[in-house]
């Protein structure tokens, strides 16, 4: 269905074409940014089937909110904001759901699959990253995801999370402390 040879390179042109009903243009946007969304969603929720559903929801939300996209920020930032919001909402929803059945409401996330890896060392590395991420508090997990999996600077992280840079800086140090404690136990 997606025309892989779509060669419009400008984001604005892709957005414009998508708005005028060009399915291939929107398909190109999905192709370009799905990996970025996967890193955020799967980093936050674990590599589960639910993460893929949230990923789809991100692009569906993007499609319906495109008329409101004014191009003041990069399209990737706009998509990232949607991904972060939907993922955090999903975490809250799961927390509420699990808290109805268990006193350990924070254990909401431990349902994930580790992708196949070719060597034991790689598998171990992947497990460490996934388990450490899932063991973190969601507000620190999102910081680690933005920095480690997306490679964003403090300023970019602040823009995506829509918080002041000072807040990101304080969360960075607290997240680092929490991560150290988690990694010591592994």
């Amino acid at each position, binding site marked *: 269905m997606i025309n892989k040879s779509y060669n419009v390179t400008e984001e604005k042109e892709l957005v414009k074409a998508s708005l005028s009903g060009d*399915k291939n243009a929107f398909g190109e946007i999905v192709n370009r940014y*799905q990996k970025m969304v996967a890193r955020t*969603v799967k980093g936050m929720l674990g590599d589960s089937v639910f993460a893929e559903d949230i*990923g*789809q929801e991100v692009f569906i939300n993007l499609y319906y909110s495109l008329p409101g996209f004014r191009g003041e920020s990069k399209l990737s930032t706009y998509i990232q904001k949607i991904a972060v919001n939907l993922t955090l909402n999903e975490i809250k929803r799961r927390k509420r759901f699990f808290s109805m059945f268990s006193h350990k409401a924070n254990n909401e996330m431990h349902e994930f699959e580790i992708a196949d890896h070719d060597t034991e060392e790689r598998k171990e590395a992947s497990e*460490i990253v996934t388990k450490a991420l899932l063991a973190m508090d969601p507000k620190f997990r999102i910081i*680690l995801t933005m920095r*480690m999996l*997306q*490679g964003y600077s403090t300023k970019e992280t602040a823009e995506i999370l829509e918080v002041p840079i000072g807040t990101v800086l304080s969360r960075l140090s607290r997240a680092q402390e929490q991560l150290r404690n988690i990694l010591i136990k592994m």
Partner: protein
Amino acid sequence: MNTSEIKNLMISSLNDDADTIEVPGRLEKEGISYNFSHNFGDKVLNKLFSAGLSIKREVEFVKYMNFAFYRIALTGVAAIVVLLISIFIIEGSLSLNSFLGLSDNYDESIVCLLTGN
């Protein structure tokens, strides 16, 4: 990269002044990558552009609801007609008293009926 190097990389990525641009690439080299299924894009587009089908289903549902409503309404009207005919046959008229089943009763007998005295 061994596990302690991975752990150090994770911790250092949270330094205020860390240059994190390289980190995702380094992790990917170690097999730590996140992807959706290969037909993810198609699934998204199918969900978005098969909306026409759901609208069609919705229209059909409304059509069936209308049909069901007429069936129920006609049955109701038929029941009312049968009731009127039976009242007319039993009471001999279609007055309010016949509807209320009071045509053969005197007021006193109603009082007796209601109070039991």
